[in-house]
């Protein structure tokens, strides 16, 4: 075991795969057969069907990036308060990448990870619910580490290598991420929801300044003033009007 891994359970049981359709799907399939210890991880060098939001593909060069999925059992959460998982994991990943690179890392609402105006990491959270309990949560992460180029269709993407100017050790990135995610998860488990919320808002990309956004009817300038417990984004227009947006109802114009 890598001594850079300083966790109690996260990443302690890891399965490494050369290629897989999707680390989330693989882990979910394993969970449907057997119980796995909390913090068990699937790591792959290549995903043939890596999933982004809904059915958007996540483009990744083989062996250059960190593609992993981790299972948690947050049975202490109410099914009506699951957005806190997004906040917790986004903070954990942002903390980890900050430690690896030393650069400023932000969370683009609701849970993309940004450095400047570039997306460097995406996540996909899949929960299994048997009312009123959460059976398990699978956190899928695609972190761009050493990839040199991105297709022209995704101008907002970058890798850590592009940002810091040198190659990074994938194993070290893995350990750093696990350490940081577990720290935040333990904070959640201890019930420190207010602290998580406060840190999440403080880490928000574009928080508190006027920028351009787009809803189905128009483009407009507004600033982010808050994120609700349900995850909704509060945007304040220049005329003072505040609107609440669901994910998919508003786009950031970057």
């Amino acid at each position, binding site marked *: 075991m890598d001594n850079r891994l300083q966790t109690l359970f996260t990443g302690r049981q890891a399965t490494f795969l050369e290629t897989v359709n999707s680390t989330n799907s693989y882990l979910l399939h394993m969970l449907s057969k057997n119980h796995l210890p909390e913090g068990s991880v699937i790591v792959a060098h290549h995903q043939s069907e890596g999933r982004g*939001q809904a*059915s958007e593909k996540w483009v990744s060069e083989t062996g250059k990036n960190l593609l992993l999925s981790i299972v948690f059992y947050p049975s202490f959460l109410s099914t009506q308060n699951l957005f806190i998982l997004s906040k917790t994991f986004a903070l954990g990943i942002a903390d980890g990448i900050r430690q690896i690179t030393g650069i400023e890392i932000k969370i683009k609402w609701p849970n993309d990870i940004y450095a400047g105006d570039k997306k460097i990491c995406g996540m996909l*959270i*899949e*929960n*299994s*619910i*048997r009312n009123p309990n959460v059976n398990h949560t699978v956190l899928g992460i695609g972190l761009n580490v050493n990839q040199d180029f991105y297709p022209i269709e995704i101008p907002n993407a970058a890798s850590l290598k592009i940002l810091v100017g040198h190659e990074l050790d994938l194993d070290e990135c893995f350990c750093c991420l696990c350490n940081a995610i577990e720290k935040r998860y333990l904070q959640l488990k201890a019930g420190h929801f207010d602290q998580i919320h406060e840190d999440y808002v403080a880490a928000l990309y574009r928080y508190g300044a006027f920028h351009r956004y787009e809803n189905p009817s128009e483009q407009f300038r507004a600033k982010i003033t808050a994120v609700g417990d349900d995850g909704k984004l509060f945007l304040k227009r220049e005329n003072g009007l505040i609107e609440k947006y*669901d994910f998919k109802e508003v786009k950031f114009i970057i």
Partner: protein
Amino acid sequence: MNIKDIENLIKFVQKSGVSEVSLEQKDFKITIKTHGRNEMVHAPVMVHAPQAVHAPMPVQPVATTPVPATSPSADESKLVTIKSPMIGTFYRTPSPDKPVFVNVGDEIKPGKVLCIIEAMKLFNEIESEISGKIVKVLVDNSTPVEYDQPLFLVDPS
């Protein structure tokens, strides 16, 4: 009013499409409620005033006879509703090109995945808590659902 009259009245109310009718006469009162298309009929509430018996006939007044439960939806009372545990968007398939998790007529048991509710980029697979047979899917694919909104009708028998 005799039993035949009451039956006719129930049929009349069901046909008319109104949701509730109350009728009050000297010696009794009846209320018939229907619920939308199910035409569920609640047993009427009877109130009988002391009646002057003119003829010395030892026969119970008709109005005191309980109306038989003729509700066509009596079976539906056994059905269990599976409700949404959260606000979000309801999906019947794991992804657009995949088959539905469950169809009407399918047998389900605890742990069977019924649908996905997506809320704020979180994908939540909803598992059944009960055993039974899916009788009806109450929500269209890819539409918004509220907390506690009925999603499926299940026959638990």
